[in-house]
Structures are given as C-alpha cells and as structure tokens.
C-alpha cells in the first residue's frame, strides 16, 4: 500500500479542532463552578481585609458578583463567544492582556527547558537501554531517579546560593526580555530552565529507555545489523525512530506542563509567568482571571495534543495511509 501524501494528515486536524470546542466548553464550566465553590469573596480581597462589610457589598454590586451564578456563567460564556475573556478583578486589566504580558516569560522558560531536556533525556534513555544492566544503565537511571525525586524548591534555592551568591556567575532571579539582548535574556533563564529540566529530564530518560528496550531486539533492527549497518546507525536510524511514538507523547506532556507554568520555579526565581498568575488569581479569588487563563491554557493543551498527533503522522507512515 503506498504512503498517503503528508498533507492528507491535515484532514483529521480540522476534525480535531472542531472536537476541541465541546472540550473547552466543559473546561470553562468546570473551572467556573470550582472557583465559585471556593469560600472567600473577591470583593473582600479588593476592598482589603480591614474594610467594613458595606464597602465589600458595594464592590460586589459594582462587579456584578451579587447576581445569581447561572446568570454570571451565561454572561461569561456569551462574552467568551464574542472574544471577551473578561477583566481581572485584582489587576484591573483585560485577562488577555495579563496573559499576553506573561506569555513570553513562560514560553521562554518552557522552550529553553525543553531544549535542555530533549537531547539529554533522549541520549540518556538510549544509552541506558543499549547498555542495559551495566553500570552505565545503573548510573543513568540513578541520575534520572534523583532528578524526579528532588524537590525543585530545594534545588532552586541551592542553585541560587551556589551559582549566584557564592560564584556570582548567574543572577538570582528576575526576567530580562529578549529585546534587551540575547545574552542577558539567556543568562536570566539558564538557572530556572535547568532546575525545571531536571525533573523532566529524568522522566524523559526513563520513558525513552522503556521505549528503546521494546524495539532494540526486534527483527528489523537485527536485519539492519545483518545488512552491515553500523551499530549506532542501526540504533539511531532504525530502533530510535520506531521508539519515537511514546517519546513524542511524553514530550507533548512535558511541554503542556511547562506551558502551564511551574509555579515553584517562577516563585523562587521571581519570574512573572503564567503559573504565578494563575496561582495568585486562585489565592485572591480573581474569578475572571482564573477562568480566562484556564480556558486559554486548555486551548493550548488541545493545540499541543493536536501537534503531537500531527508529528505522529509525520513520523509514522502507517498513520498516514488512507
């Protein structure tokens, strides 16, 4: 059966995009309900903990928080349909604008962390699988275990004390926009990206190892060797390519988690990212901000999953045959 042209993989893409609509609707409604189940009043947060009840009630009325919940939900959904994600109660700015301000930070951190995670995690996984049950396998898996086990908060603080305070090599925190220069931008993000990568790296190495172990002794790999292909060529061009599906899946999951933001790393390194935005919004009961941001994150997750499926189709010709 001939391979279908690659562009035909785009057919299901459109279907998946349409399927995303009900998913996002469920995300919107569930987020709204969960937020409103939380005790605490955003009007009281805005007024301050020393404000009298009359002031709080006035703010509630001004913000429409005194209306029945179904009415508030319908109003929000109607606004969403018109592209209005609402206005943050605490920040007093549009939700889209608040997210847009923080997106470069989160994307920078996520991409840099992924660029560290992918090559190291995959190489470690391949090495560990190829040299399974040797000291190389043991060391690599031990390092991976340490990476997933050590609390990122602790690693982050230690890293700051060593690389920033003692050695003075890297800043203690803060974000430098890319527009201010590539070197300062990179210098500000290296530490948080590495700390974030440690956990992902261990996870990716373990998954890559498992996937490689499944394919290394398959017939087509033995055939490649028998045909005179070099050992590493057989491993990388044949075995690894067939182990890519679960690796791509894990990569998609890792990227989704990174886009969602790592609150701990953002907190320690004072990075104004989306993770911190969402957590602060929850703590301060900023309903529109959390609802809007969760919906945008849901859209991002759907998009990333779609991207993973497209990559599957590009990598595995069996998925393109139509």
């Amino acid at each position, binding site marked *: 059966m001939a391979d279908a042209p690659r562009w035909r993989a785009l057919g299901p893409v459109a279907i998946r995009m349409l399927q995303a609509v009900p998913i996002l609707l469920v995300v919107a409604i569930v987020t709204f309900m969960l937020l409103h189940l939380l005790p605490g009043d955003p009007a009281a947060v805005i007024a*301050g903990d020393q404000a009298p009840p009359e002031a709080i009630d006035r703010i509630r009325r001004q913000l429409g928080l005194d209306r029945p919940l179904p009415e508030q939900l319908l109003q929000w959904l109607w606004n969403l349909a018109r592209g209005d994600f609402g206005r943050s109660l605490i920040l007093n700015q549009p939700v889209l604008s608040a997210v847009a301000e923080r997106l470069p930070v989160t994307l920078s951190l996520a991409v840099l962390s992924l660029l560290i995670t992918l090559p190291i995690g995959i190489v470690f996984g391949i090495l560990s699988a190829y040299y399974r049950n040797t000291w190389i396998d043991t060391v690599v898996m031990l390092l991976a275990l340490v990476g997933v086990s050590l609390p990122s908060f602790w690693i982050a603080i230690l890293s700051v004390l060593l690389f920033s305070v003692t050695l003075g090599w890297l800043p203690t925190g803060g974000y430098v926009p890319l527009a201010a220069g590539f070197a300062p931008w990179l210098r500000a993000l290296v530490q948080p990206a590495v700390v974030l990568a440690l956990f992902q790296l261990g996870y990716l190495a373990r998954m890559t190892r498992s996937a490689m172990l499944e394919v290394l002794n398959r017939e087509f790999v033995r055939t490649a060797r028998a045909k005179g292909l070099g050992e590493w060529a057989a491993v990388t061009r044949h075995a690894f390519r067939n182990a890519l599906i679960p690796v791509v899946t894990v990569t998609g999951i890792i990227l989704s988690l990174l886009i969602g933001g790592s609150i701990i790393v953002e907190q320690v390194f004072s990075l104004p990212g989306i993770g911190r935005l969402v957590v602060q919004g929850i703590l301060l009961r900023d309903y529109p901000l959390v609802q809007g941001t969760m919906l945008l994150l849901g859209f991002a997750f759907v998009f990333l999953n779609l991207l993973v499926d497209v990559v599957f189709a590009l990598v595995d010709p069996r998925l393109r045959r139509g």
Partner: protein
Amino acid sequence: MVRQIAHACIGAALALVVSGAGAQPRHGGTIVYANTAGPSTLDPFLSGNTIEIEVVNQIYEGMLVLDEHYHPKPMLARAVEANADATAFTFTLRHGVKFQNGKEFTAADAIASLQRYGKVSPNTVLLANVASYETPDPYTVVVHLKQTNAVFKDMLVTPIYPVLMLPAEQADKPAREVDFIGTGPFRFGEWVRDSHLTINRNSDYVADETQSGTDGYAGRKIVDVDAVRYNFVPEANARVAAMRAGEADIAGIVPPELAKTLAGQDNFVAQTVFPGCMSVIFLQSANPPTDNPLIREAIAAVTNADDIIDAAGLVAKKQSSILYADSPYYDSKSSSSYYSQNNIAHAKELLAQAGYKGEKIVVLTNGTYPAMRDSLLVLSEAMKAAGMNVDFQVVDFITNGNAMQRGLKTWNVSTSWFCSQPLLGPQQWRPIIYNYTQVTGNAVLDAAFQNFTTKVRVEDRKAAWGEAERELLGKAYVVKISDFGWMYGYNRRIKGLQPWYSLRFWNVTAQ
C-alpha cells in the same frame, strides 16, 4: 589643550554657582529594593497593604500626615485649627506646592480629593460625618462636620486607605483608574506587574523648608537618589540572596532565621522595625457558645502569651494593651490584669459557671501565615486542657479574613495581625472590633467609643478609651497576645535609612 582646561574650569565653576554655594552634592544612583510582592493598585484611596502604602507615600502627600511618633502633622497644610467643639476644621495650605504635572496644589484639589475619597475608598465612613466643605480662598479649606469629632485629625492620617491629595481633574476617575500624579518627592516611573516597579526622583519637588530632617511622612524631604526600583521577590531566601549577590540593596521582610546569615558580614545590616504589628485574637460574640461572656473569659483565662510567642517564632514582645506605649491614650492599668492569665483552674470555674456542656468551639485559622496558625494551635491545646471541645480548622488567609470581616457564624475564635490600628489607636480599632466580634447592644462600649470621639480634652478621651479597653478585654471580645516587629536587611552603602512603619527614600543616599 590650555583652552580645553580653561573651558573645563569655567564649566565647573558655573556648576558650583548654579547648584548653590555650599549645597551638598547629589550622589544619585538607584536603590534596588527586593520586596515580597507588588501592589495591586497605586490609587492611594484604595491602598491597604504595606507595599501599596509605602509606595503611594513616596508619590503623594496629604494635608496632614503621620509624624515619626504617629501623631498628625501638617504637610501640604501649613496649619490646621479646630473650632471649640470640633465641628469645623480649617486647613491653611502651603503656597507654591506643585503636582508632578506642574499644576499648583490648591483648595480646589483638596476638596476634589476628599470628595473622591468619600466615593471610592473602602473607608468612606471616615468622611460620613462631613456636612460641607468651604473654600474662602484658594489656600484655605474648611471642613464642617455634622457632629463633634475630636479625633478627626487623627482619622485623616489613617495609614490604611490614606487621604492623600490628587489633582482635581482626577475627581471623577473610578476606583483604581487614577493617573499617578501627586505632590511627593518621587514620581511614578514604571510598573511591570509581578516583576518590578520604579519611582523616579521628582526634580521639581517643593520641600517644606519649615521642617527639618525625616519625620514620619512629614519632614523636609530631600531626595538624593535618582530612582528606587522595587523588585517583587516572593521567596525570602531569594531576597536575601539577591542582596548578598549585589543585585539588591535592601531585602524586605527577612525571617529571623535568615537574618542570622547576615551576622558578621561587613557589607550588610539587619535592622528590626519594632513595633511593627500586633497579634490579637478575636472572640465572636454572635455565635454560640462564645456569645456567652463567661465562655469567652474562660478562653482568655487559658491564654499564655509566652507559649504563643514561642510557637509563632516572630520577633515579639509581651504587651498587654491594644495601643502602643507611646500613644497619648495608653494606660497599662486598663489591660494588664487581663493579659496572659495562663490560669486553667480559673477557666474551668468560668466554664462551670457558664453551664458549659461541651459545645463545639470553632477555632479558625489559616495556613498562609504559619505563625497565625501556630499561635492558635497553642491556644487550642490550652483550651482543651481546660475541658473545651475545640474544632480546629485551617483554611487559607482569604477565607479566614472573609469570615472575620463578615462576622460569619462559622467561627468562634480567630486571629489576625494589625499594623495600622495600634498606631493611631481607638478610632482605628473601632470598625475592626465591631465587625469582627459582632458586638451589639453593649452600652458600656458604645458609650465609651462615643465619648472618645466627642470629648474635646485629651484626658477625657484617655478615660473613655480606658473604659472601652477594660470592657473589650474584660469581657474577652479581644485577647491581646504580643507586639511584634519585622526585619529587613540592607547594604551599608545605603545611608540614612531609618526603621519605621514604612521605608522612606528621602534623606537617603546610595554611596
């Protein structure tokens, strides 16, 4: 070559002449301050947390402000006089004071600011007693009150939701939508939420030449630095690390255990602001069983301030009153007999008298501030030792605060920290006490607060407050625990920084 040297000398000489013979040279530079969090607003009328209060008091000023000892002092006003029965207050304004947009501050701006305050601030009750405003001339404001208020000047210098002056053009701006234009020694620079905020030196600032030095939010404010940059660094370790790495000059709110790491370091100083706040426990009087005064008194009887202070781990000292000792209304005799009784046996007697039959007593606290949680944990154990049935609940601070603010009947015992109320005293405490404890129909307390507000003589107000405090503590609506402070660290290159309620960056140099 000779010509160049000559030009340089002439230029230097001119610079000396222009700057004023004998004037101190400016050092300039930027102070970087690693603070815990950023403000949510710079609208002064809605500024309620410490960072908001600190920043707005660099940008804006009031007619009256707090002096170093937390008394009202004229700032934009030259003088303030009250009539005999404290129903009219005349503010005589300074001439030539400029807003940062170049406009002169006049009575019209003062009245517009007060009117806006009455519309948008959560503290509108402050001006609820105002009957009318009058401006006999552009530099005089007369505030007429409906009823006597002997502490109106004290109320005007409230640290929370401060009454600071805006240009009249801002009068109709909704809450949190003002332009950041004040008369203060710093002007607004840049604000990147969750990242940093910068205030720049106001080179056109008109200092009050009749005052001298740093004096609370008053005084003669001379700005030496070019700018102050507040970096928002939520993690305490990261703040101290930033200072030690040379990325910040000041690290705010340093926990005592981290302050120890600065000991012995030549470049840094750890300074304590004391007192900074008070730790106070509230007992809800609208929710059984603490609607019974004997039950509340039993809870007060088991309180051991030493144990609670140890558990909380703050830089704290025992002090029985809910005023600080330098308040003109302070009298330890009103409070000392009710403080830290640590008497389980007496508590048991009170419970027996009350007919207590093991009804659940909800102790509500939060995990957001471990010191608050640990304080009430210690109290709960003491309550149990006296035979009380305690339901210890931990929520987050917002839920905890909301339950107290609303006087919800979901709690009997809770706590919070108060940094502003103790500074000015009784009139600041009143709304908190009545809302949180839900006290109603207490004729003694009502009369005492009424007398405090309406008695013109300080001695009479002091006596009235004594009545109120004895009632509050005696009937255990309120249980005082401690005064506590906070620490901050700074680089020794910063000169002139004085420990106080807020940091002030005038009369400070960065060498």
